[in-house]
């Protein structure tokens, strides 16, 4: 089969993407159950998050080994691995986020719960556009402009997360709770928005790859 090694790498990249998506979805479930005060269920989803994140790491190592063993031209290997690494970092951020909730157990005031849930859904939901962009690029079944539209959507969604972060930060710091509690909530919020920040980086990396391939 022509380009067998290279096609195997693509399959692994798509598998890594699926597993990373599962990590992020599991992390969101963890947060949702935590905010719903169902800690037992949250723990189950946090374990799933850690499991899928470890699985994603193993796939990433496999991709790295295949590239090291000669899949793709040396010129392209760095770009491919950087892209995989940037997607992996999104999964890492999601895992760190669910770990934060279960390890540090932040006390979210009732009036802030809907806002924490909203920013979590928005930030961790960014994986949908990122996944579409990467699938589009690697399957090669859509126009380069469509890939760029999806990466732009990642950026737009990240900006929406920034706006929600701003509003919630303000809400935290003008509330009546003590300062230690405020900084703890802010730290929690930082962990949540980190996911969309990393997704934006991955989108930028993909954008760079598409730019390099433009004639």
């Amino acid at each position: 089969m022509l380009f067998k090694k290279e096609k195997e790498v693509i399959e692994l990249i798509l598998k890594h993407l699926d597993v990373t998506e599962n990590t992020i979805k599991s992390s969101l479930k963890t947060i949702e159950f935590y905010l719903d005060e169902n800690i037992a269920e949250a723990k189950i989803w946090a374990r799933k998050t850690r499991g899928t994140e470890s699985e994603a790491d193993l796939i990433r190592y496999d991709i790295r080994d295949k590239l090291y063993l000669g899949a793709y031209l040396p010129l392209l290997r760095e770009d491919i691995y950087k892209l995989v690494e940037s997607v992996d970092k999104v999964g890492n951020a999601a895992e760190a986020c669910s770990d934060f909730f279960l390890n540090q157990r932040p006390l979210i005031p009732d009036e802030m719960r809907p806002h924490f849930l909203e920013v979590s859904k928005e930030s961790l939901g960014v994986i949908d556009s990122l996944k579409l962009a990467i699938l589009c690029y690697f399957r090669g079944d859509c126009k380069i402009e469509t890939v760029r539209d999806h990466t732009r959507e990642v950026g737009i969604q990240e900006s929406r997360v920034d706006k929600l972060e701003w509003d919630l930060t303000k809400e935290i710091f003008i509330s009546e709770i003590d300062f230690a509690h405020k900084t703890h909530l802010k730290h929690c919020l930082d962990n949540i928005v980190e996911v969309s920040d990393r997704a934006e980086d991955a989108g930028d990396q993909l954008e760079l790859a598409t730019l390099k391939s433009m004639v």
Partner: protein
Amino acid sequence: MGCGLISFRNAVILVSIFALLGALLQGQHVMYTIGKGIVKADLNYLAVIIALVSSGFFVTLATFYKIPTSTSQAIVGGVVGIGLALNAEIDHSKLISIVESWIICPIMVMVLAFALMYILNIILRKFESRTFLMQHAMGRLAILSACYTAYALGANHAGNAVGPIANLGIFHPKLLLFIGGLTIALGAATYGKKVAHTVGTGITPLDIPAAFVAQISSAFGMHLFSMLGIPVSTSSAIVGAVVGVGLVKGAKAISTKMILTILMGWILTPTMAAAAAYICYRTITVIWG
């Protein structure tokens, strides 16, 4: 190698194999031209040595200063210089057609590269999906085209290097061509990196499709002239091709200063080689009687 497709080590291995094949299979045409085609006389040992040393010296000098120069032009210069020093009959029509080919070849290659790059751009834009796999496939094609370039290089340049020795008639032509091909490989392994860098990045930055077009066009040009028995300049063909693909990107992408430096090398190398060969031969024969 200039656009980072292949390591220098692998490039040297490929160049060695294909240059040797080109030399053995099609190097005899140019070898005959250099040996008996320009200077219509039997050369003596001293004349052959001086022709080779003076042309080799100026090629090495230009290469040291990273100027892509022409072995063909240097060797033709050296042989003509020796012919003049010996008062031998020089086939002017042959010489003129060789010099003309030095101008025609890069222009022809440049036009070919421009046309191919233009067509390839249209095809690639139509494809739209520019995945890593497609870039990889283009890269593989570029490496294949590099092999063809090395083959054409062997076919054209092995004959250059050993042509004057063939004039002596002391070795079998195939053995001479084998030695010629082998020394091309040695040259690529030792000094090749500097010139590869200059041609690959110094004139205009090359992407993978551009590298493919530049190599296939220059190889075609060199191969064509090799079959006609005309020694042409590999560097002029490659520079012509790189300029051709650069023009598709827009003339601003080409370094004018670099092109002028290369042109200077093309004029100076054969002139200096001819003058050096002439002066050396006359001086030595005067001293030794």
